[in-house]
């Protein structure tokens, strides 16, 4: 086929009637997208600034006292967050204590031990757990978990371990321990997911070398995989902790909403988040509102700190983060 005949060109180019590009389009578009990206930075600043400004009154009024003193009295205008800090800390740590071994075991199972066809479906199922909204888990917590705990495990616990000062009964079941359990359920997926990524990042050559030495499956895992992954696993735990600290709805529904100090795990309490949620329906003003903001500020700072720490630990491993979609 003769290209010249087809193209109809005889030498010089005819005009093409195409629009001249113009830099305006590029500039406008780039500016627009830049603005939108900057919104994220603005948003972060906004959150920080709003919380700081909001808690200014309370900070100036109570200062250090706020953290070591425990009270929540809108009538007399006296607020102290120690109990909430304590409950947050205890419930989250307990939750981590429960969830971490289970998650690690699961992650080991899914990466090292499970038959191939099981792995992806099982992981998907676990990620479904992450997608369950907190309030739904809370409903299940109130009507299924807590009654069961109250009838079965808790009395057993009190009977056998009641000599320990923290495990005295009786209990309605709506208590710090129940909150810890439900938080544990909520953070299982994320720890499992990250632990799995961390394990997968270990090159197969390491495992092969261990196998070649005649190690059993467990020894291979211990020598080749776990030792390599310690840092990343710390990061997974940190992320789990961060998530645990921010858990709100399910905790609010099972923790019993009490501001009374107690050393019993089976006593009701309030975490920072659940206390804030418990203010629903009140219309706090003035100092009351400021104290609320201070709770929020503390919550934000502590979750940000754990997240940054987690990121540093995991980033060092180069492991990826999962498609977590849970609602706290």
């Amino acid at each position, binding site marked *: 086929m003769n290209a010249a005949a087809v193209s109809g060109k005889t030498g010089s180019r005819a005009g093409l009637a195409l629009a001249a*590009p113009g830099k305006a389009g*590029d500039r*406008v*578009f780039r500016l627009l*997208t*830049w*603005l*939108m*990206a900057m*919104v*994220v*930075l603005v*948003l972060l600043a906004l*959150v920080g600034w*709003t*919380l700081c400004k*909001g808690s200014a009154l309370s900070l100036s009024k109570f200062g250090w006292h706020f953290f070591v003193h425990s009270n929540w009295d809108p009538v007399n205008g006296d607020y102290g967050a120690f109990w909430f800090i304590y409950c947050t800390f205890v419930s989250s740590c307990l939750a981590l204590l429960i969830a971490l071994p*289970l998650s*690690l075991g*699961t992650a*080991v*199972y899914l990466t090292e*031990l*499970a038959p191939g066809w099981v792995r992806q479906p*099982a992981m998907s199922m676990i990620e*479904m*757990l992450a*997608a*369950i*909204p907190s*309030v739904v888990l*809370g*409903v*299940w917590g*109130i*009507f299924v978990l807590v009654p069961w705990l109250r009838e079965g495990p808790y009395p057993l616990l009190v009977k056998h371990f009641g000599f320990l000062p923290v495990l005295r009964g009786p209990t309605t079941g709506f208590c710090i321990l129940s909150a810890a359990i439900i938080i544990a359920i909520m953070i299982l*997926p*994320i720890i*499992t997911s990250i632990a799995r990524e961390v394990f997968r990042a270990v090159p197969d050559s390491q495992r092969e070398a261990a196998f070649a030495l005649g190690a*059993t*499956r*467990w020894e291979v895992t211990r020598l080749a995989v776990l030792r390599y992954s310690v840092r990343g696993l710390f990061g997974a735990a940190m992320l789990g902790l961060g998530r645990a600290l*921010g858990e709100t*709805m399910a905790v609010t*529904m099972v923790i019993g909403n009490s501001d009374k100090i107690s050393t019993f795990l089976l006593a009701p309490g309030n975490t920072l988040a659940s206390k*804030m*949620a418990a203010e*629903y329906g009140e219309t706090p003003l003035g100092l009351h509102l400021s104290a609320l903001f201070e709770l*929020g500020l503390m919550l*934000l700072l502590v*979750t*940000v700190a754990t*997240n940054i720490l987690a990121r540093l630990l995991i980033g060092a491993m180069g492991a990826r*983060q*999962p*498609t*977590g*979609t849970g*609602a*706290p």
Partner: protein
Amino acid sequence: MNHWYHRWRKLKSSGVSGLCLLCALAVMTPLALVFFHLLKAGASSLDLAFLTQLPTPPAEPGGGMANAIVGSATLLGLAGLVGIPVGVLGGIYLSEFGARRRNWAVRFAADILNGTPSIVWGIVVYALVVGYSAYAAGLALGFMMIPLIIRATEEMMALVPNSYREAAFALGIPHWRIVLNIVLKTAGKGIITGILLAAARVTGETAPLLFTAFGNDLWNRNLSQPIEALPLKIFNYALSPYDDRHRQAWAGALVLIIFVLALNIGVRVMTRGRAPRLAR
């Protein structure tokens, strides 16, 4: 002795394997239990009346969560108005333009925002916007969507091979048209799934609504008034002293989880596992 020791090692290994299997089962049990109970307690209450009627006065049994369902849809729409344009365009910026350091700051901020407890979003918007309203709630949820969508969009755009950009440049097409008509179009499906996942996540949120939407037992016709939403209603009903309300809370929870999981599973099926990472 070697023989026995070897036996012991093997036993230990099997033992640990068994433990790990137990762990895996333990992790999956709550999911199964939650579903089981949801279906058992909620399915029977999930009738047409529930889906179409308004709530009755507190002590009266009956009624439904129609306004809550519509409210959730309304809030999702409002949130999307805020979250989708900002998130997608911002994600485009991170992927296609921008300097390394500035991008790192934006990504870092997005990750921090993603890790912010949702109740904090609630009180922040409470401070910024006067009064309880659908707008406030939509804004809070929209703010939550922004960092989720921006990361998903960036990831999906970055996956588009550079060869397409090169080919488009070689045709003398202006950069912005390349980004919009070629790169964005190629990444489109992935970005949409990112948006859907963010929508699913945000629909299940209750905490931000406590201080913004407040709740409403009637149809919300005015977006500057308090509005009801499904998670909020579930929360209210679960904590109420009435059995009939509890029954409805289960039904509402079932509706909510069906919606959320349907979106999640749908997305997974659509992308066959290559869904964008939203956040940790």
